[in-house]
C-alpha cells in the first residue's frame, strides 16, 4: 500500500531557492486555473505542503485546500483535510468555510469520511462554530464502532480545551465514555478528566475509586493484549491514571488512602529493565510524593529514585536528579544519600545534567553552603551560551547569593557593621537593576527569607539587621501574595513588645507597620497597636501611634503619602523652608530677633570673649549637627537611607563605638565585591555574639568536615576532593545536620559506639590482639562490598573463613583508636567442647555451595550471623545466634515476618530453649521465592527474656539468583520444552571486549546465575535453569557483531524478565 505521489519532488537537489520559486509560480497558476481537476489539485496540495514546510509563502493555496476537502472523493478529501490542518490555525478566518464540509461528512454513512471529519475537528475548529457540530458529535458517542466513539471523545476534549462552557452539559456523557467497554475510548476520556481535575480536583473525588479500579485492572494485565507496549500493559493509560490520582490525592489523606495499594502494586510490577517501565516508575514516584504521604510508600519511592540516580543511563540519571529536585523539600536526607552522585553530576560533560544538578542545589541552598553553590552556578554561566538559561540562572544567583550573604553579614556583623552597609544594601534592593521582574523576584526572596527568620521563636537578631528586615517588609511584603499581611503585622507587633529592641529599631518597625497598613484595608493588629502605643511613655512611639491613627482614618492620604515602591522616587525638598516664611514674618513682627547663621554667631561670640580658642571647631560642629538630627524632623521613617548619618541618628552614643570598632569588623565587601578569605578568623570571634542565628553563620564554620577527616583519609585524593565538596554542599541539610560523607561511615560510627560499650565489660587485653591490624583503604572497600554481596559464591574452608570475618570487622575500625570487641581466643579455648562463639557451618553443610557468614545485627547481648546455603531444592538460611553475655539466655525466639515474595517452608518461628553463655546456636530455614522479584527483603526479629523483654530486628536481602538452580537436560528435551513455552522475552546486550567469546560469556552466566549450559553450537548456545521448586526457564543466546542476543522462554511470565535483568547485571559487572 502507499502510492508515491510525491515522487516528482525529487528534482530539487539542493532545494535551490530558484527552483522552488519556479515551482511555486507554476503551482499558483495551476491551482487557480478553472480546468484543474481535483486529482491534479491533490497533487498540488502535497507539493504546497512541502513548500510551506521549507519555509515558503504558500497562503494562495489555502482556499483550495478547503475546496479539495469539500469536493474531492475520499482520496482527495483526505489530502484536503490534511492540508487544512497543516496550513490553518484555530483563528484563521478561512476555517469557517470548512464547517459545512465537516457537518456533511459527520453525517456521511461512510465510516472513513466520518473519521476524517472527526480527526480534523480534534485538531482545529473555530470556537464559535462548535454548536453547529456538537449534537452530531454527541451522537457519535453511541456509535457502534469504537474508533468513531474514540474520535468523538477526542473531539469533545478539544472543545473542552477551547470552550469549556460549551460542553458543560455533557459531563454525564464523559462518565459514560469513562465506562466504555472499549479501553481505547476509556483512555481517550481520561484526557478530558485529567484536564478537568487539573482545574478543579475537589469536584471529582468521587471518581477516585473508579480510577483506582481501572489502574488495578490495567496493572494486573486485564486489558486486551493489543494495548501492550513491549509486553507492558497500556503504559500510556497507566501514566495518565497515575497523574490523575496524584492530582486527586494531593493534600487529601482520605482520598490518598484509597490509592496506596494500587500505587504499591504499580511500583512492584514495574520491575523490568525497560525504558517504558522506568517511565511508569517515574510517574509513580511523582504521584507518591504528591499525594498525602505514606511512609512505607515513600521509602519505596525513595529507593526507586535511587535507582534512577545511580543508573549509568544518562536519561535515567537526569530524571533521577529531577525527581530529587522535586522531593528535596520533603526529604532532604535523600539528597544526602546521593551526594557523591550529585557531585559527579556537577562535572558532567552534558550541560543539561549540570543544569539540573544546579537546580537541585538551588533548592537546598542555605547559609552554610551558599558560597560553594553560587560558585558552581557562576562556573556554569561562564560556559553557557543559551540566553534563556543565563537569564534564569542569573536571577537565582542574585537571590541566593545576595540575600543570603547579606543575611549572614548582618547577623554576624551585628550592630557593629558600618552603617553604610545596610544603607547600601537597601539602596541596591530599592533601585534594582534593569529588569523589573528580576527585581521583584529578588525582593520577594528577601521578604520570604526574613519572614522565615522571624518565624524562629526567641531568635535574637542584631538591631541593624532588624531594621533592614523591617524596611524590606514594609516596602515589599505586598509582593508576596501568599502571606496574609496580618501575619506580618503580628510578627512586627511582637517584636515591638520585646524589651531588647532599641527605640531606634522600634521606629523602623513602626514605619514598616505604617507602610503595610497603607495597602491593607483594615487590620485588627494595627488598631491594637495604635491603642497600645498611644499612651506609651516613649514619646517617639506615641508620636508614631498618633500619626498612624490619623493616617488610618484617611486612607486616601495614606496611600498618597506612602505609595508602593516609592522609595526611589525623588522627593522635592524645599531647602529654603519657604513654607515657614509666614511664620518667620509673624515672629519678626512680634519683635523676635532675626536669625543669624551659625558662623556669624560664633564670630560674634569670639569677638566678645577676646580670648584664644584652642578647640578644633570643625569637629564639634560636625558632632552637633549629627546629634541635632535626633531631635530634628529626621525621624527615621526608613525612607531615607542615602546618607550615612541619618540612618542611625537615634544612637549618637553608639556612633563612637562604631567608628572605634570598625577595624575589628569583618570586611566582607571590597572594591571587587565580596571578600570571602578573611572571614574564617573574624567570623569565629564573632560567633558567640549571635548564637541564636547559628544557621546563618554558614561559611564561618570554617571546617565542618574536620570531624570525619580521619575517615576520609583512607580514600583516594580525588574522592577526597569530591567528599570535601560534598560536605560543603550538603552541610546543614537533613535532620542530623551533620555531614555523613558516606552511608558507610555513619554506620561505622554507630557500630563502634556499640562495641566500645561492650568493650568495657570485656577485658581489654584480649581485644588488643587485633588492634594492630594495619589495613589499607582498599580492604575496607572490598570488605564492605563483601558484606553487601553475600551471593558471591566463595567456598572457603572453616580455617581461613574465621579470620576473614575478624579482619573485615576490625578493618571497619582500623582508623579509629577504639579497641575492638573480638570473640576472645581464651573464651574459645575454654569452651572448646561447646560450640564456638564465632559461627561456623556443620560439616555436611560445608560441602554445599554457600555464602560467607555475615553479621546481620547485634546488641549488647546477642549477635546474629547469617549464611546462605544454596541446596538443590531450596535456599537454606542458616541463622546463628550468639550469646555474648556471661550468663545463659533462656527462651530465645526467632521470628520471620510474612514476606510477600518469599515463602518459608515449615514454620516461620524457631525457639532456642537456652543459649549458654558465650555460645552460638543456629537454626535453619528453607525458603522459596513465591512471587518473582529481582530482589526482596525478608525481615524478622529475635526476642528473649532478660530483665526486660528485648527485641532485635534484622533483615535479609534475597535475590532472584538465590532461587535459581541449574536444570540439566538434553538438547532434544530442550527443543521440545522450548516449543511448548509461550512467554518469551528477547533482548540484545552489548558485549564488552573482555567477553567476546560466546563460551566465556556463557560460563560467566553459568557461574554467576547458576544456569546449566545445555549445548553450544557455533555462535549459538542454549541454557536452562529452574526457579525453585520447579519452574523452568530456557535461554537461547546468539552472538553477532559484538552483541549478545538473549531469548528467554518460560511458563511463568515474570521469570524471563527477572532473569534478563540479572543477566544484564552480570554482563555489566564482568
Amino acid at each position, binding site marked *: *500500500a*502507499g502510492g*508515491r*505521489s*510525491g*515522487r516528482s*519532488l*525529487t528534482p530539487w537537489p539542493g*532545494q535551490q531557492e530558484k527552483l522552488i520559486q519556479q515551482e511555486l509560480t507554476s503551482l499558483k497558476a495551476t491551482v487557480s486555473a478553472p480546468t484543474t481537476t481535483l486529482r491534479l489539485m491533490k497533487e498540488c496540495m*502535497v507539493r504546497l*505542503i512541502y513548500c510551506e*514546510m*521549507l*519555509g515558503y509563502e504558500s497562503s494562495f493555496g489555502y482556499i483550495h485546500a478547503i475546496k479539495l476537502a469539500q469536493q474531492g*472523493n*475520499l*482520496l482527495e478529501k*483526505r*489530502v484536503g483535510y*490534511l492540508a487544512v*490542518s*497543516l496550513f490553518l*490555525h*484555530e*483563528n484563521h478566518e478561512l476555517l469557517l468555510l470548512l464547517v459545512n464540509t465537516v457537518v456533511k461528512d459527520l453525517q456521511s454513512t461512510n465510516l*472513513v469520511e466520518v*473519521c*476524517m471529519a472527526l*480527526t480534523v475537528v*480534534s*485538531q482545529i475548529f473555530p470556537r464559535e462554530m462548535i454548536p453547529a457540530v456538537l449534537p452530531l458529535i454527541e451522537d457519535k458517542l453511541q456509535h457502534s464502532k469504537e*474508533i468513531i466513539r*474514540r474520535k468523538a471523545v*477526542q473531539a469533545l476534549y478539544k472543545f473542552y480545551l477551547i470552550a469549556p462552557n460549551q460542553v458543560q452539559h455533557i459531563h454525564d456523557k464523559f462518565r459514560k465514555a469513562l465506562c466504555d467497554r472499549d479501553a*481505547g475510548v476509556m483512555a*481517550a476520556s481520561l*484526557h478530558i478528566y485529567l484536564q478537568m481535575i487539573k482545574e478543579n480536583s475537589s469536584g471529582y473525588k468521587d471518581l477516585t475509586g473508579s480510577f483506582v479500579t481501572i489502574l488495578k485492572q490495567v496493572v494486573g494485565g486485564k486489558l486486551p493484549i*493489543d494495548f501492550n*507496549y513491549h509486553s507492558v500493559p*497500556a*503504559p*500510556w*493509560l497507566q*501514566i495518565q491514571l497515575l497523574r490523575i490520582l496524584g492530582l486527586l490525592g494531593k493534600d487529601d489523606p482520605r482520598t490518598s488512602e484509597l490509592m496506596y495499594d494500587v500505587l504499591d502494586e504499580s511500583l512492584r510490577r514495574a520491575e523490568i529493565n525497560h*525504558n*517504558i517501565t*522506568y*517511565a511508569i516508575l*517515574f*510517574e509513580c514516584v511523582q504521584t507518591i510524593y504528591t499525594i498525602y504521604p505514606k511512609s512505607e510508600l515513600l521509602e519505596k519511592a525513595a529507593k526507586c529514585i535511587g535507582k534512577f540516580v545511580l543508573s549509568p543511563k*544518562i*536519561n535515567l540519571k*537526569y*530524571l533521577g536528579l529531577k525527581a530529587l529536585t522535586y522531593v528535596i523539600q520533603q526529604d532532604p536526607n535523600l539528597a544526602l544519600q546521593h551526594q557523591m552522585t550529585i557531585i559527579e553530576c556537577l562535572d558532567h*560533560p*552534558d550541560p*543539561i545534567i549540570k543544569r*539540573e544538578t544546579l537546580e537541585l542545589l538551588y533548592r537546598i541552598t542555605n547559609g552554610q553552603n551558599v558560597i560553594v553553590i553560587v560558585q558552581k552556578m557562576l562556573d556554569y554561566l561562564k560556559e553557557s551560551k*543559551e540566553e*534563556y538559561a543565563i537569564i534564569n540562572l542569573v536571577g537565582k544567583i542574585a537571590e541566593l547569593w545576595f540575600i543570603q550573604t547579606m543575611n549572614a553579614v548582618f547577623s554576624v556583623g551585628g550592630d557593629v557593621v558600618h552603617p553604610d552597609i545596610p544603607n547600601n544594601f537597601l539602596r541596591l534592593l530599592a533601585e534594582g537593576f534593569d529588569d523589573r521582574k528580576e527585581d521583584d523576584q529578588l525582593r520577594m526572596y528577601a521578604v520570604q527569607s526574613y519572614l522565615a527568620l522571624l518565624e524562629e521563636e526567641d531568635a535574637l537578631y542584631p538591631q541593624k539587621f532588624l531594621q533592614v528586615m523591617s524596611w524590606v517588609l514594609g516596602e515589599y511584603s505586598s509582593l508576596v501574595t501568599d502571606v496574609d499581611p496580618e501575619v506580618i503585622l503580628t510578627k512586627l507587633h511582637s517584636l515591638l513588645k520585646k524589651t531588647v529592641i532599641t527605640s531606634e529599631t522600634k521606629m523602623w518597625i513602626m514605619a514598616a507597620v505604617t507602610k503595610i497598613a497603607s495597602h491593607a484595608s483594615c487590620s485588627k493588629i494595627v488598631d491594637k497597636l495604635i491603642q497600645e502605643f498611644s499612651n506609651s511613655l516613649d514619646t517617639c512611639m506615641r508620636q508614631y501611634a498618633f500619626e498612624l491613627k490619623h493616617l488610618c482614618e484617611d486612607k486616601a492620604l495614606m496611600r498618597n503619602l506612602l505609595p508602593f515602591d516609592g522609595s526611589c522616587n525623588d522627593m522635592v525638598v524645599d531647602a529654603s523652608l519657604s513654607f515657614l516664611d509666614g511664620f518667620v514674618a509673624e515672629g519678626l513682627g512680634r519683635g523676635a530677633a532675626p536669625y543669624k547663621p551659625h558662623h556669624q554667631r560664633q564670630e560674634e561670640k569670639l569677638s566678645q570673649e577676646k580670648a584664644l580658642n584652642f578647640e578644633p571647631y570643625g569637629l564639634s560642629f560636625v558632632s552637633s549637627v549629627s546629634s541635632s538630627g535626633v531631635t530634628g524632623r529626621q525621624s527615621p521613617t526608613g525612607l531615607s537611607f542615602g546618607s550615612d548619618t541619618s540612618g542611625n541618628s537615634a544612637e549618637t552614643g553608639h556612633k563612637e563605638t562604631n567608628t572605634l570598632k570598625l577595624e575589628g569588623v569583618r570586611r566582607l565587601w571590597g572594591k571587587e565585591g565580596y571578600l570571602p578569605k578573611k572571614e574564617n578568623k573574624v567570623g569565629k570571634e564573632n560567633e558567640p555574639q549571635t548564637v541564636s542565628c547559628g544557621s546563618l553563620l554558614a561559611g564561618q564554620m570554617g571546617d565542618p568536615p574536620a570531624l570525619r577527616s580521619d575517615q576520609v583519609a583512607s580514600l583516594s585524593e580525588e574522592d577526597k576532593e569530591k567528599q570535601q565538596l560534598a560536605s560543603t554542599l550538603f552541610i546543614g541539610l537533613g535532620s542530623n545536620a551533620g555531614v555523613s560523607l558516606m552511608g558507610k561511615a555513619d554506620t561505622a560510627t554507630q557500630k563502634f559506639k556499640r562495641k566500645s560499650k561492650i568493650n568495657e565489660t570485656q577485658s581489654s587485653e584480649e581485644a588488643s590482639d587485633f588492634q594492630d591490624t594495619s589495613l589499607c583503604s582498599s580492604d575496607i572497600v572490598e570488605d564492605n562490598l563483601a558484606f553487601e554481596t553475600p551471593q558471591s559464591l566463595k567456598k572457603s574452608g572453616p580455617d581461613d573463613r574465621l579470620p576473614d570475618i575478624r579482619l573485615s570487622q576490625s578493618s571497619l575500625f582500623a582508623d579509629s583508636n577504639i579497641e575492638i570487641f573480638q570473640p576472645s581466643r581464651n573464651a574459645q579455648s575454654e569452651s572448646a567442647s561447646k560450640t564456638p562463639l564465632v559461627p561456623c557451618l556443620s560439616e555436611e553443610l560445608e560441602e554445599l555451595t554457600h555464602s560467607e557468614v555475615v553479621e546481620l545485627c547485634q546488641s549488647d547481648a546477642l549477635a546474629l550471623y547469617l549464611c546462605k546455603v544454596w541446596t538443590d531444592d531450596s535456599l537454606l538460611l542458616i541463622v546463628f545466634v550468639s550469646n555474648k553475655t556471661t550468663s545463659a539466655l533462656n527462651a530465645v525466639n526467632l521470628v520471620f515476618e510474612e514476606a510477600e515474595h518469599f515463602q518459608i517452608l515449615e514454620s516461620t518461628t524457631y525457639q532456642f530453649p537456652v543459649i549458654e553463655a558465650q555460645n552460638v546456636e543456629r537454626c535453619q530455614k528453607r525458603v522459596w521465592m513465591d512471587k518473582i522479584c529481582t530482589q526482596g527483603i525478608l525481615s524478622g526479629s529475635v526476642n528473649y527474656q532478660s530483665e526486660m523483654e528485648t527485641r532485635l530486628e534484622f533483615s535479609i536481602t534475597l535475590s532472584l539468583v538465590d532461587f535459581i538452580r541449574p536444570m540439566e537436560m538434553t538438547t532434544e528435551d530442550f527443543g521440545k520444552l522450548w516449543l511448548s513455552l509461550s512467554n518469551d522475552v528477547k533482548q540484545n546486550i552489548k558485549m564488552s571486549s573482555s567477553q567476546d567469546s560466546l563460551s566465556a560469556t556463557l560460563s560467566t552466566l553459568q557461574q554467576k546465575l547458576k544456569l546449566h549450559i545445555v549445548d553450544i553450537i557455533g555462535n549459538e548456545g542454549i541454557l536452562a535453569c529452574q526457579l525453585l521448586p520447579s519452574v523452568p526457564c530456557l535461554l537461547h543466546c546468539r552472538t553477532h557483531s559484538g552483541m549478545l542476543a538473549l531469548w528467554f522462554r518460560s511458563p511463568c511470565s515474570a521469570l524471563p524478565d527477572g532473569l534478563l535483568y540479572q543477566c544484564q547485571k552480570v554482563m555489566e559487572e564482568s
Partner: protein
Amino acid sequence: MQFMLLFSRQGKLRLQKWYVPLSDKEKKKITRELVQTVLARKPKMCSFLEWRDLKIVYKRYASLYFCCAIEDQDNELITLEIIHRYVELLDKYFGSVCELDIIFNFEKAYFILDEFLLGGEVQETSKKNVLKAIEQADLLQEVILRSVLRSLNV
C-alpha cells in the same frame, strides 16, 4: 505535547506538526533554533533538553531526528516511547522505513501521525489499530482508483 518536528542530520525539516497555535514567524524561529541546538548535541548526551520554558525530548533514528516539545510536568520517558512507537508504526507501514520514504510519502507520514497522536495527545496506542485505520483508508483509495481506471478503459 506542543509540537513535533522531524529533521535530517543536515538540518532539513522533514515533517512538522504543531499542536499549539503559533504564528508562522514564531514557528520558523523555533524550528531554526531547535534544529541548531539539537544538532549541536553529542551522541552520548541526554535525550532531554530544557529549552525556553519547554522540555525537548529528541531521539535520532539513522539520519533523522525526531523531536518533541512537552511541558514541564509531562513525562519525558513516555515521550521518548511515543517517538519510538511512531517510528515503529512508520517502519511497519513502509517496511523498514528510511528518510527517503518520509520525503516521498510525507503525507502518509502525516496520516499515520494523526491516527496515533491527536491534538497532541496519544490517541491510539495499539499498533494494530493505527495501521488498520490507515490501511482501511488506503484500501478505499485503491478501490476508487481501480473503479476510475476501469471506467477509463471502457
